[in-house]
């Protein structure tokens, strides 16, 4: 047989995954809706707003809107990545793609790696395009180009990877919708947890609650859970802090990015182990 020297099945499967996802009408519609929403923020840059009797200039508003949009897009794309991932194994099974691929000399880990990479690249592209729109709008309105936006976007892609790996793994064990809801729950808890933590450590809260000395040292169980929880929200906050050059103080045992990457490793391990034992039909 005259086979290609450097035939890499991962690249081929990745290519097919991207092609299959992009041709889905629901994907295109979802993308257009998101892009339209992002374009709507354009109106926020035009006028000067009055807040507490002070006139805020367009520049300040622009910055604020840009950062808020960054957060919303990153969170929304995380949700979309979970949605895209939850049906992928079932669809491949139902359409005979799994049995077609795995009847060839292709290892299961190669198939799973290609699927994961494909989904990750697709959702990253989705997020980068939406973030680029914001970048473009900010540039037009405030004449400042915040290219660190795209770098921050790349950092947030670790969240996408975690969500994809986790949903893929859980979709092998649970009904897909439950798998999706579980990861949605994990993400929501991460955002709410950070919100509560920030509120409880704000100066006002500190002043209201007279804490006895030594209180900070004793860890309660929910603090332990909070420190160990996947830090999806903190990664986003870190990324936005990088955009505006603010200092970012993190809580937990390790840096949020390290936390999320460690969770990615764990999920990847579980996913590969579980898929090895999967019956292919």
């Amino acid at each position, binding site marked *: 047989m005259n*086979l*290609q020297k450097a035939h890499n099945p991962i690249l081929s499967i990745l290519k097919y995954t991207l092609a299959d996802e992009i041709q889905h009408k629901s994907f295109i519609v979802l993308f257009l809706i998101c892009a339209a929403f992002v374009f709507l923020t354009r109106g926020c840059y035009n006028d000067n707003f009055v807040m507490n009797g002070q006139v805020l200039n367009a520049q300040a508003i622009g910055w604020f809107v840009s950062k808020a949009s960054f957060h919303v897009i990153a969170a929304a794309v995380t949700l979309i990545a979970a949605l895209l991932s939850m049906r992928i194994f079932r669809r491949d099974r139902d*359409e*005979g793609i799994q*049995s077609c691929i795995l*009847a*060839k000399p*292709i290892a299961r880990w190669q198939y799973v790696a290609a699927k994961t990479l494909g989904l990750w690249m697709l959702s990253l592209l989705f997020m980068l395009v939406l973030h680029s729109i914001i970048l473009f709008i900010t540039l037009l309105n405030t004449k400042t180009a915040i290219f660190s936006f795209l770098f921050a976007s790349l950092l947030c892609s670790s969240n996408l990877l975690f969500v994809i790996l986790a949903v893929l793994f859980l979709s092998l064990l649970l009904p897909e919708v439950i798998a999706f809801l579980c990861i949605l729950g994990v993400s929501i808890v991460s955002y709410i947890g950070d919100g509560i933590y920030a509120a409880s450590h704000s100066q006002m809260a500190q002043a209201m609650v007279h804490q006895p000395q030594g209180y900070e040292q004793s860890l309660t169980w929910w603090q332990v859970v909070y420190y160990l929880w996947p830090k999806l929200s903190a990664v986003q906050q870190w990324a936005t802090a990088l955009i505006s050059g603010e200092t970012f103080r993190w809580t937990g045992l390790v840096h949020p990015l390290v936390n999320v990457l460690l969770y990615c490793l764990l999920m990847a391990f579980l996913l590969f182990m579980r898929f090895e034992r999967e019956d*292919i039909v």
Partner: protein
Amino acid sequence: MSNTVIEFNNVTKRYGSLTAVDAVTLSVAQGEYFALLGPNGAGKTTLVKMMLDFTRPTSGTISVNGISSTNTACRNAIGYLAENHRMPPHLSGRQYLQRCAELCGFSRREAAEQCDRSIERVGMREKEHSKASSYSKGMIQRFGLASALVGNAKLLILDEPTAGLDPIGIREMRLLLESLKGQGMTILLSSHLLSEVEKICDTAAIINKGKLMVKDSISSIIRDGETLEAVFVRLVKGLT
């Protein structure tokens, strides 16, 4: 004809309390046309799936071309047609075959040539550019066979290849398989069409409730002017 291509060594597969395959030992030689026969639920598909490592045996070992079935390398040059073959509905038959060939390691151009050849072989030239969602069951089955042929396979594993085919399709399938004979191709096929099996295959194994009842050349299985069907019914009914 002495080189062993497939070897099942005391293979058992249990699903909970159900024993789908029960201590089966058998081998298929190179160039042999081998039929796996048995009633519904006998364990034919389970045997096939264990060969491809789609499911692992509870005990026993399987080797293909001398390589353990758990090693991906053993699936080099295997063409597989699944029981109730399916295709992604948004792809045309040609796009599907192109992917299959590329996954076998062919370059885009070589893959296109492979597609042309196998589309011609299964007589699907007219429909090659239509979406799979518009295909009938028999057409999907034909493209499935084409996909098994696409990678220059030396071993074909066909799980009920005639399912859904019309009488002409069944005849064409037989002629196609016969035309591959003598090219060093080994075929393992599971089928319920005993008259076709009698015409094409050299050897057959009859399994029932996961147990191997008989494995011999078709001419030895059919004795005293009995048909394969009569032997099949006698063996299967004899147990129940």
